[in-house]
Every structure is written in C-alpha cells, then in structure tokens.
C-alpha cells in the first residue's frame, strides 16, 4: 500500500511542475464569417504557424459574422477580447482610434511589411496617424450581369446610367405569359440595412458625390450627384418597374436564388458572388463590369470611384502578447499567404502587390476588373459613427425614396440632417 501512496504523492507533486514548464504563449484568434474554403485554409495556415513557432499555441474560434458586433461589444466592454480578430477596415476608425486595436505601425519592421501591399489597401487600415491592422481581403463593388439573359436579349453590359436603365427595362419581362413579370432587370438587397447602403453608395461615388467632407465634419449625402443616383433607382422602381418588387425583404440568399433562376438580370455585388453562385448553380456565367457612371461623366468613367470595402486583421490593444500576435498576423497576411486568394476562390481579392501581379492572377477573368476598380475605389469615410449612419439613417431614407414615400431630394435632406445631428451628439 505504501509504495502506491508514495507514487501517487510523487505524481501529484510532479504534475504542477509539469504545468509550470509549459511556457507556451496562447493566442486567441477569432475569425468571423468567411466561406468554408477560407475557413479551411485558415486552419491549415494556423497549424503551420504553430509548427514553425513551437512556443506559441493558437486557439482559433470560428464565429458568426452576423453577430460580430454583439460578440465584440461584450468582450470589449470587459476589457478583454481575442488577440487577433478579422473585422471591417472601417473599424479602424471606430475602434482603433479609441484605443482598442494595437497600432501596428509601432512594430520595428512595419515599414517593410507595409510595402507588401497595394497602397490604397494598406491605407484603408489607417486612422489618424496610426495603422490598426493588415488588410486581408479587398472588395470593390461592381455590377454583375446575368450572361444568359443579356445574351438572349442581345445587349451588352451597361456603362452609363441611361444604358443601365434601358437594359433593366428590356430585361424585365413576363416569361410565362401569366400577365405578371417574373424576370426583373435589377435586384436590390433591401432587407440587409448595412448591405443595402454598400450597394447604393457606389452610384453616389460614381456621380462624384461623397457621403461626408474629408474633414469628417459635414455630412453631404444630399449632394446633387447623390440625389441624382437615388432618383435613377427610384425611377427604375416606380416608373419602369424594373426592380424586383419584394426587394425590401431580400438578403443575399434571395439575391442568389433569383439570379440563379434567371429571375434577376443585374445586381451590385463583390468578389464573393462567383463562389456564391457556383454553390447554387455550378457553371452559371455572368459579366463583371464597373458600376455605371452618369451619362455626363462617361468620359471619366475609368477613374470614377466605386465603394471599397476591406477586411483587416487587427491585434487587441490589451493583448498580453502583442509581439507574438504580430508574428501570427504577418504570417497570415504575407505575400505567400495572399497567394491563396489568387489560387482559390476565397470570396475576395488579394491585397499584396506580389499576389496581384503574379502570372496566376493574370489567368483569372474578372480579377482585372476588381483590381482596376480597387485602384481608385474609396472606402466609407473614416468616421466612428459611419456604420450607424449607413445602416440606420441612409438606408431607411433611401429605401423610402425608392418606393415613393418621399422624393429623393427630400429623403437625402432628411438623412443628411439626422446624420449631422448624430455626429454632433444631438441624437
């Protein structure tokens, strides 16, 4: 009996010291959303990082993109949170500026790392004098055109607003003869308040309008170009009836269903569209073209801005291991990693110059469109309240104008007024 007790005691005493020897640094990496292929790739990438860095353990959690704000809020309100997280680049303004993200420009090798990326993409993670993350996936909003429907009608993808309106009108038809149209020219994502703003604003930008002045002090949603853009869509809905009537309830799923079943001819989308459509109806083809410009600005179409969106990887300002987190960040976002965005369809565009200029990149057919658009795309103004303005002020008023409850000019005046009050703290 006694030897057993002694052995057990020795074991008991030995165990804590075993634990103490395990000096592994633990990094928490949260990944929000993403396509299954991206998630798979991330897991393998993280595994190979841990092999190369034996003292570091990475705990990866996959989380729902739709609950990103609730989940991050809960964490940040307690002063905790994952060491590394992927968020919209415009969170640099909202969170970075408030001290929640680590300014990566303070790391010694930042200048070299910065050079990996296309300039406008790394600039998207900047707020004030600091950079708050490394760009992961670049998105530019473009117009996708259902090839089957366009070819059948014998028209080419539109480049100007009048071509756009005409195309939508021609592509709205009653195909089964029951007196009710079942094919529509344009489908809008009205049921997703954030998403809708992202798809309407490119028209504003192409018309030269900006949501805010550069000093972020004045809201300019009611600039003439913007109102004209809104009037275009409103006329298409109310006069031509070429916009899907149920759009106020649509999310991406419905857009995908309609596009794949040839009930919608055009939509404003981004790099995720190819994979999304492929999952639903493999082999479905579509044209990818820049968002149309107003007729009077057709001459400058090549440099007209569209909306840029960027996902970045950020480090928690309160992370206990910022240096190791930086190592992981670089590993996830270096030129070698970025090639995955070229080689596989991960739902977004690569961000490093090396990847974008590689021969494999040249072989992708719609990548040039995205790269060209990204070259002069503009992100949302870097104001901390921009997300709230876009989803809760801009979208409702724009939607009201489209369905005819209010005039486009009136809607944008109201939106501008409310947004101005919001940024001045009066709401």
């Amino acid at each position, binding site marked *: 009996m006694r030897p057993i007790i002694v052995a057990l005691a020795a074991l008991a005493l030995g165990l804590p010291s075993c634990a103490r020897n395990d000096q592994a640094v633990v990094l928490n990496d949260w990944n929000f959303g993403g396509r299954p292929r991206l998630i798979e790739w991330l897991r393998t990438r993280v595994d190979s990082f841990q092999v190369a860095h034996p003292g570091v353990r990475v705990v990866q959690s996959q989380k729902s993109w739709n609950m990103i*704000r*609730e989940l991050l*809020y809960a964490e*940040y*309100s307690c002063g905790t949170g994952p060491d590394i997280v992927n968020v919209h680049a415009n969170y640099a303004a*909202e*969170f970075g500026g*408030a001290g*929640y993200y680590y300014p990566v420009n303070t790391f010694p090798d930042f200048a070299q790392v910065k050079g990996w990326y296309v300039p406008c993409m790394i600039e998207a993670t900047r707020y004030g004098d600091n950079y708050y993350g490394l760009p992961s996936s670049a998105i530019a909003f473009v117009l996708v055109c259902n090839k089957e429907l366009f070819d059948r009608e014998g028209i080419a993808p539109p480049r100007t607003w009048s071509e756009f309106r005409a195309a939508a009108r021609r592509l709205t038809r009653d195909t089964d003869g*029951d007196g*009710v*149209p*079942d094919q529509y020219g344009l489908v809008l994502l*009205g*049921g*997703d*308040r954030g998403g809708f703003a992202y798809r309407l604003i490119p028209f504003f930008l192409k018309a030269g309008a900006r949501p805010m002045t550069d000093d972020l002090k004045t809201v300019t949603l009611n600039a003439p170009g913007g109102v004209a853009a809104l009037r275009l869509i409103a006329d298409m809905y109310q006069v031509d009836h070429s916009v899907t*009537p*149920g*759009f*106020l*309830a*649509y999310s991406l799923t*419905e857009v995908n*269903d*309609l596009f794949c*079943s040839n*009930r919608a001819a055009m939509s404003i989308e981004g790099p995720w569209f190819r994979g999304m459509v492929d999952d639903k109806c493999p082999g479905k083809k579509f044209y990818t073209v820049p968002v149309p410009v107003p007729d009077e600005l057709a001459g400058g179409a090549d440099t007209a801005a569209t909306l840029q969106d960027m996902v970045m990887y950020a480090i928690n300002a309160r992370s206990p291991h910022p240096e190791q987190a930086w190592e992981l960040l670089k590993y996830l976002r270096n030129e070698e990693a970025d090639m995955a965005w070229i080689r596989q369809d991960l739902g977004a565009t690569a961000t490093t110059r090396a990847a974008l200029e590689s021969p494999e990149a040249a072989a992708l057919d719609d990548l040039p469109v995205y790269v060209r658009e990204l070259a002069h795309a503009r992100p949302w103004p870097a104001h*901390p*309240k921009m*997300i*709230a303005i876009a*989803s*809760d002020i801009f979208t*409702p008023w724009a*939607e*009201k104008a489209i*369905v005819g409850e209010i005039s486009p000019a009136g809607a944008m005046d109201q939106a501008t007024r*409310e947004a101005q009050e919001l940024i001045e703290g009066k*709401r």
Partner: protein
Amino acid sequence: MKRSLPYLLLAPALLFTAFVLVYPLGQNLLNSFRAVHLVQGTGGWTGLDNYRHVFADREFTLALRNTAGYALGGTLLALAGGLAVALLLERATTRATPLVTCLLSLPWVISPVVAGFAWKWMLNDHFGILNAWLAGAGIVNPGTSWLGNPHTALLCAMVARAWQFYPFAMVMFLAGLESIPAEQYEAASVDGASAVRRFLAITLPNLRPVSSVLLLLGVIWSFNDFTTVFVMTRGGPIDASMVLPVLVREFSFVHFDLGKGSALSIVIFAALVLLSALYLRVLVGRERA
C-alpha cells in the same frame, strides 16, 4: 428557526433573481442617465438626454405601436386558436389523441429560431409554398411579397408568433376544461340549454382564470420577443415591423450607444410594469365583484 424558515426557503430563488433582474435593472438605470458608449467610454451624467433622444427617435413611436399590436394581437390569436383546438380535442377523443396532442404542440417544442426561419421560407415571394398555392388558386399575383410589404410584414410575424405560442394556451385550456365540474353541464342540459349557450355560460366563465393568466403572460413574453421578428424581417421592410426588443439591440449593439439602449430598456420595463399593474388591478377588481 421557524420564523425564518420561509425566508430561508426563498433565499436561493431570490439570489438568482437578484442576479438576473436587480443587477441588470440597476445597471440599466444607472447607464440611462450617463453617456455610455462602448467605444467612446463612459462619460459623465447627462440627465434626461438619453430619454429625450429615445422619445425623439424616428423609430421609437413606430416600434412602440408595433410592439403593442404584435404582443396583443399575437397573444389573442394564440388564445383563440388554443381554445378552439382544445375544444376540438376534447370532442374528438380517439386512441390517437395522445399522438395528436403531441403533434399539435410541435410549434412550441421547436426552437424559436427554427420556427422563424420555417415561416420565412414558406413566405418567400418567388419560391415559397404559400405563394405557390395562393397564386396557383388565383388569389394573389405570383411573386407577391409578404415580408417585403410594409402592410403585411408585421402581421406575418404576428401569425408566426401565435403559431409558436398557441400550444401553450391549448395545454392550459385542456387542463382548464378538464377541471370544469361535469355537474354544471348536466344541470344546463337538463334546463335545455343549447351548445352555444352552454359554451358561453359555463365553459368561458370557468376558463376565465386560465385565460387571464395566459393573456398577461403571453403579452409580456411577446412584448420582449426578439427572435421571431428579427429572424423574419429584422425590423423591415424599412421600419415597418420594428419592435422594441429589436430597437434595443440596434441602439446597444449597432450604434454601441449603451446610454440610449439602457434608457429604452427602462422605458420598456416601465411600460410593462404599468400595463401589468393596471391589468392585475382590473382582474382583482373583477374577481371581487
């Protein structure tokens, strides 16, 4: 020991309640008078500013009206449905009754998230089975939007909510019906009363305690129901189906304005307390009479 026994028995439950009511209520109350923002941090006292912002908010009055309608309408519908089905079950007793009761209770047994999505799919304008039947029968145009139409969106959510809640009412009514003494019915048939008369004079009055409680609980629970509306419409189209719980989430988790979110929470709480107090007073008054 004897004197303190009830308090000791209540202690665990009270502890839990303190944890899930008193502390959050206190926090919300506190925050509603300050400028609390996740990103900008906790500021100083702002007096009634948050409340002013809430009442002036474009979506607030709409949400208040919608929530009242949704809660009351959904509960009344569920109660009516529950009673009707309970009566039917009582009359149509067969060997399959246990199975049928279980099947009829399914809407309550499944998760609210699933229920919301199931209704959303069925109501899809182009691909849903509801439109397939209605359009096929010529009642509506093909492609009619239910959740994208400001006039029908909240109604659909209300029906979905009633669908989820009615089994609860049904089971309560079944129990209630079972406890009505048979003598009352016998006496009535001896007097020659018709079925309708028996229902109105015996069944309904006997069920009043059950229905009063069901109404109160149903309205309170539906008032705070976030899942159904959020899953089906997210408060849309535009704002047509915005309800107060979804609005709280918008203030707290989209705008990150916890001060405003807390103020709205207090307003909701106060509204429910007031409603319940009034209701209970009427109820007690009626019972005394």
